[in-house]
């Protein structure tokens, strides 16, 4: 990815994330979340993970946030008046979170020597991911389907009206 493109996209992603977190109106926040997820999908495609990027749009931006919007509309949430905790707590939270960010980015630094490895053929394509999913990670795959079944049943039971 070209550096200019990266910085522009990164700035937009951070802006939309801040938009989600700081917005008073939940519907605006959900729209900012869609923008954020779409920008991350663009990042994924730029990082040669095409299938994951497209799946991100289908699953996250296309289904999960629609679910959020449904719930917001069902509960008819309006813009909150007091949407955040008291200012001293906000300040403390920002300080702690800033420290957290510095710690994490320090720990995630990769050794520069591995930067030049060439990508194997077919990296990021559907076939490679499918091959891994059905051979090495077959057990987590099956367990995930069980998890989804439990989630579906749980969601239906929880949201059902009494009687």
């Amino acid at each position, binding site marked *: 990815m070209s550096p200019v493109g990266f910085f522009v996209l990164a700035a937009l992603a951070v802006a939309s994330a801040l938009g989600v977190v700081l917005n008073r*109106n939940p*519907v*605006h926040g959900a*729209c900012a979340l*869609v923008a954020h997820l*779409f920008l991350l999908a663009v990042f994924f495609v730029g990082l040669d993970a*095409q*299938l994951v990027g*497209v*799946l991100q*749009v*289908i699953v996250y*931006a*296309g*289904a999960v946030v*629609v679910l959020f*919007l*449904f719930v917001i*509309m069902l509960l008819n949430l309006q813009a909150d008046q007091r949407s955040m905790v008291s200012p001293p707590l906000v300040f403390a939270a920002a300080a702690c979170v800033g420290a957290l960010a510095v710690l994490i980015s320090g720990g995630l630094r990769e050794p520069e020597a591995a930067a030049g490895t060439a990508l194997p053929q077919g990296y990021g*394509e*559907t076939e490679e991911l499918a091959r891994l999913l059905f051979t090495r990670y077959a057990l987590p795959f099956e367990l995930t389907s069980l998890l989804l079944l439990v989630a579906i049943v749980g969601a239906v039971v929880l949201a059902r009206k009494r009687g």
Partner: protein
Amino acid sequence: MELAIVAVKAVFILLLVLQVMGLGVFFERKVSALIQDRIGANRASILGFAGLGMINTLVADPVKFLLKEDVVPAGADRVLHFLAPCLAVIPLLVTFAVVPFGDVLVLGERVINLQAAALNAGLLYILAMASLGVYGVIIAGWASNNRWSLLGGVRGSAQMISYEIAMGLALVGTVLTWQTLDLQAIARAQGELLWGWLPAWGILYQPLGFVIFAVAGIAESKRIPFDLPESESELVSGYFTEYSGSKHLMFMMADFVEVVLVAVLVTTLFFGGWQLPWLARDGFHFPWGGSLLLPSVVVALLQVTSFAVKLIFFTWLQIVVRWTLPRFRYDQLMKLGWKGLLPLALVNVVLTALAILLWGEHVA
């Protein structure tokens, strides 16, 4: 230079879609008139000249929309009200980037693949953009500050996400058959001949998949018989009641562009896309031995024409379906989506997998 070629291809497919959309409006008016045993809208006149009949109307209609006052209801969210039509139209238009409208065009030494963006996960990209189309509906319903619009919007988006699932699963059978997600590869693979003379179009391999996909596609674009979110006799205009002027035009455009999209996908996946029977890259090769060699530009032109003809046929078919069938009730609609199409699509996947296992040598 590469960028220029991609730009030309993108502009070409966009213009093709917009022209067919305009034709779609014309068909809508004329075909509906013929079905209902009347003449149709031919009263518009340009500077007193009414000779062209319905074509005058087609010019007058968009002009009328564009010149109308843009009314935003009181208490509505202005930003979202403005955003919703864009969110409805843009994902649908962007989908056409991965659609192949011809095989290759050989200009001198350059072999140009006639597809604006050759993604190797093209089919998934189309599903992704279709799932983004839900946002236009739901935000339009919410931003209108009108409880009937909200109702229409929520019903519409629930319908869209239900039928998205059936659409995706119907496509799984197609992917199993052609073993690729790239639309150009699928279109090319349909040029092979079964038993020496029958072009291997997708409908021969996936008849059930075609039916499921066509029904789910029509439901996704919220056309009759599935147009409860827009029900013209019940909810005024449903989720876009409060939109006037060019925003209304955007929603109408989204409707027709989706009709064209479903037609394009059905053509490419099940009816050979740009394939003309027995036409290969260098000319016709008939099964009875004769052959007719043609230059590459003529072949490309024939392929694009065949694509356009099939596209127009399926658009016309959807319009005929619209004016023939009555509307589904909402619970019937949901029942059809979840209890009818979804199990049927799963059965299709299982049957396709079994067929490939047993007769795998005959498949591309």
